[in-house]
């Protein structure tokens, strides 16, 4: 390894060749401020446009100040990070950015969580000279089913552009215009709804300002809770419990399952249930489908579409409906756990408690913004009554808890209600990349081989590599598993499927890097990739501590089939728990 020696703020340091000044300084405990720069190294995500110039430092013998985030260390360099010149330049840069930024912090959705606001505080900005002459951009706000955009708050860091193009390979967003009107937007400045956006929410997850935020559905939930004629049930996705604590100052990776349940009860939900229950149900349906197709394939049936693709991530579903409609019979037809829950709650459970589905309100707490769109899909309602009425994000729940004067940290733990609150370890790991397919393997193995699984943990399916593969031995039958998270990675595997070159029998796809733990609705990670790792570890911990760790052993799932559904993939199960996909590709129509 070639190394380089340099001096930063009078301290000597030796770093690997190619290291930037920013990273070298970090090794010395010197935190040079950054704004546009984003580095999630565990996920291989980097945004380095060198555009904002907040990170400038003085390099001896150089005339101009250098951006630390994109300047590489050189031998003998002498760097100063807080000279008068540097601090003045930094302040001027900030003043410029702020002169073209609305000043409505008090009522901004991002307030308290805003990197721009924090930077203004950190740099001690107290006034913006020349504000009275400053030009301001004038974009109209845009609201889609999941995401709100207020481009007047865009500071052109282009993080969202990087996420949407490089990490997600969607390309709904691009830098447009110049000067004060420069912003990142969909083609022709159309609303997001008229773009190829998948509502994955990764742009929201990284936006440092209030330019991109989620659509807030908490007022709808509040209204339902206040209505005495409604019975309100709530379901919580696996990844929420591994991240919610962060919003209350707890360490990333703190599991708050019990406190979350108590908080939801305190908020007034009549039944606190778990999406983990329907994750177990998903495994029953998807696993059976997988085995069915696999057996037909092994028997030489050419109509059996292999590989089977998971379908529990709605951002992913949106993606293939837009870009791979020709393959829409390849993914599993199983609905997502959110929608399976809604379908069961509004039939089986509504009957049990003798409430009409119109008077039963199902709320979901999700790490995800695509779920907001998903629950609004027409095919997921009956006579205009949605299976899942409202979907709110982990962040919205945190804000809701604070508004309700609940001291989250001091809450006692409590348990989910029955019957839709019982779950297994297999369901918990749905929240991390590789988790769904691991859960499916645990069940499919036992059903296929008729033997008991010796080793429940499939470590070969875990990790954060963007594309992973493993061969799982089904008692002599090698089953090839592929895993992708981040849609650009998924696209690679799908291109192979389209070309007929895929080696896999089953592929798990999650739209968000890291899986649901990195979802667009989670507490902001502020560019710290350790946060995602800690959340994943928390889920695997919860799994390991569960008494039951295989979906098909969940007693309430067994009961649900006995009392109501019959068996997996039965006609009733198909009607309630499966769906079909649509060709939503952009069409070029030729006029005569």
């Amino acid at each position: 390894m070639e190394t380089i020696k340099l001096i930063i703020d009078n301290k000597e340091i030796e770093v690997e060749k190619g290291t930037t000044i920013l990273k070298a300084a970090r090794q010395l405990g010197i935190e040079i401020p950054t704004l546009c720069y984003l580095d999630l190294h565990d996920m291989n995500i980097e945004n380095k446009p060198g555009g904002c110039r907040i990170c400038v430092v003085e390099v001896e013998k150089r005339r101009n100040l250098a951006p630390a985030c994109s300047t590489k260390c050189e031998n003998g360099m002498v760097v100063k990070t807080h000279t008068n010149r540097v601090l003045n330049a930094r302040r001027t840069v900030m003043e410029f950015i702020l002169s073209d930024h609305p000043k409505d912090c008090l009522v901004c959705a991002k307030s308290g969580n805003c990197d721009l606001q924090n930077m203004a505080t950190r740099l001690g900005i107290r006034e913006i000279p020349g504000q009275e002459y400053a030009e301001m951009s004038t974009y109209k706000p845009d609201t889609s089913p999941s995401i709100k955009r207020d481009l007047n708050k865009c500071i052109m860091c282009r993080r969202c552009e990087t996420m949407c193009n490089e990490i997600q390979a969607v390309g709904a967003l691009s830098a447009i215009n110049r000067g004060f009107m420069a912003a990142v937007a969909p083609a022709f400045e159309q609303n997001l709804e008229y773009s190829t956006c998948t509502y994955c929410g990764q742009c929201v997850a990284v936006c440092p300002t209030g330019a991109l935020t989620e659509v807030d559905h908490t007022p709808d939930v509040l209204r339902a809770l206040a209505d005495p004629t409604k019975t309100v049930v709530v379901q919580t996705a696996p990844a929420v419990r591994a991240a919610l604590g962060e919003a209350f100052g707890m360490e990333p990776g703190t599991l708050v399952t019990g406190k979350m349940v108590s908080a939801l009860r305190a908020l007034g939900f009549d039944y606190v249930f778990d999406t983990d229950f329907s994750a177990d149900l998903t495994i029953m349906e998807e696993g059976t489908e997988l085995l069915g197709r696999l057996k037909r394939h092994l028997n030489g049936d050419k109509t059996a579409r292999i590989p089977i693709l998971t379908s529990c991530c709605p951002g992913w579903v949106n993606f293939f409906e837009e870009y791979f409609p020709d393959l829409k019979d390849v993914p599993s037809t199983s609905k997502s756990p959110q929608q399976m829950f809604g379908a069961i709650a509004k039939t089986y459970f509504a009957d049990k408690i003798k409430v009409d589905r119109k008077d039963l309100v199902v709320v979901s707490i999700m790490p995800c913004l695509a779920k907001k769109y998903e629950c609004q899909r027409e095919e997921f309602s009956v006579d205009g009554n949605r299976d899942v009425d409202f979907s709110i994000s982990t962040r919205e729940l945190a804000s809701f808890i604070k508004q309700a004067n609940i001291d989250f940290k001091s809450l006692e733990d409590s348990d989910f209600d029955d019957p839709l609150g019982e779950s297994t370890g297999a369901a918990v790991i749905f929240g991390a990349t590789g988790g769904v397919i691991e859960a499916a393997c645990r069940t499919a193995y036992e059903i296929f081989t008729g033997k008991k699984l010796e080793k429940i943990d499939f470590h070969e399916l875990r990790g954060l590599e963007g594309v992973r593969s493993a061969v799982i031995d089904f008692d002599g039958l090698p089953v090839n598993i592929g895993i992708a998270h981040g849609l650009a990675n998924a696209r690679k595997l799908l291109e192979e499927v389209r070309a007929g070159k895929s080696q896999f029998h089953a592929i798990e796809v999650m739209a968000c890097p890291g899986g649901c733990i990195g979802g667009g609705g989670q507490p902001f990670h502020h560019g710290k990739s350790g946060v995602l790792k800690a959340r994943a570890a928390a889920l695997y911990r919860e799994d390991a501590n569960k008494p039951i760790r295989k979906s098909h052993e969940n007693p309430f799932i067994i009961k649900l089939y006995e009392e109501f559904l019959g068996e997996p993939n039965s006609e009733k199960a198909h009607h309630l728990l499966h769906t079909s996909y649509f060709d939503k590709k952009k069409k070029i129509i030729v006029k005569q």
Partner: protein
Amino acid sequence: MSNIKIEIRQEDVSKIKEICASYNRDPQELINILHACQEHFGYLPAEVQEVISAETGIPVAKIYGVVTFYSFFSMTPKGKHPISICMGTACYVRGAERVLEEFKKELKLQVGQTTPDGKFSLSSLRCVGACGLAPVVLIGDKTYGRVAPDDVKKILKEYE
């Protein structure tokens, strides 16, 4: 989720395909492709950008980003009499900006726009190489030299 439908004439699609093919549908050649399309169509409407996107695989948002970044590209058709005001250094120093302002005022137009009747469009360009005549205004093929703001009304009268 797009579900978007774009309508365009067959001959236009064929032309765009031909242009893209002549650049091997290479995303690196986007600027050249846009130039060639603008030359053919006179401007770059959304549908043209969509077809270029389908041909080259470049997301249409990116194409739109390029079109709005370079002032040379336009998404509105040029007027019957396209007016270009040179903003090169020589013209600028000798008052081209005030001439431009006068055109804007007279025609109630911004740079890059076309009058609703399609008669005039307004653009600015970099040095046309007639610095001796600064400030220079081009209307169609005709060149006007040493233009002062006061001349603008008179010039426009010629086209009534």
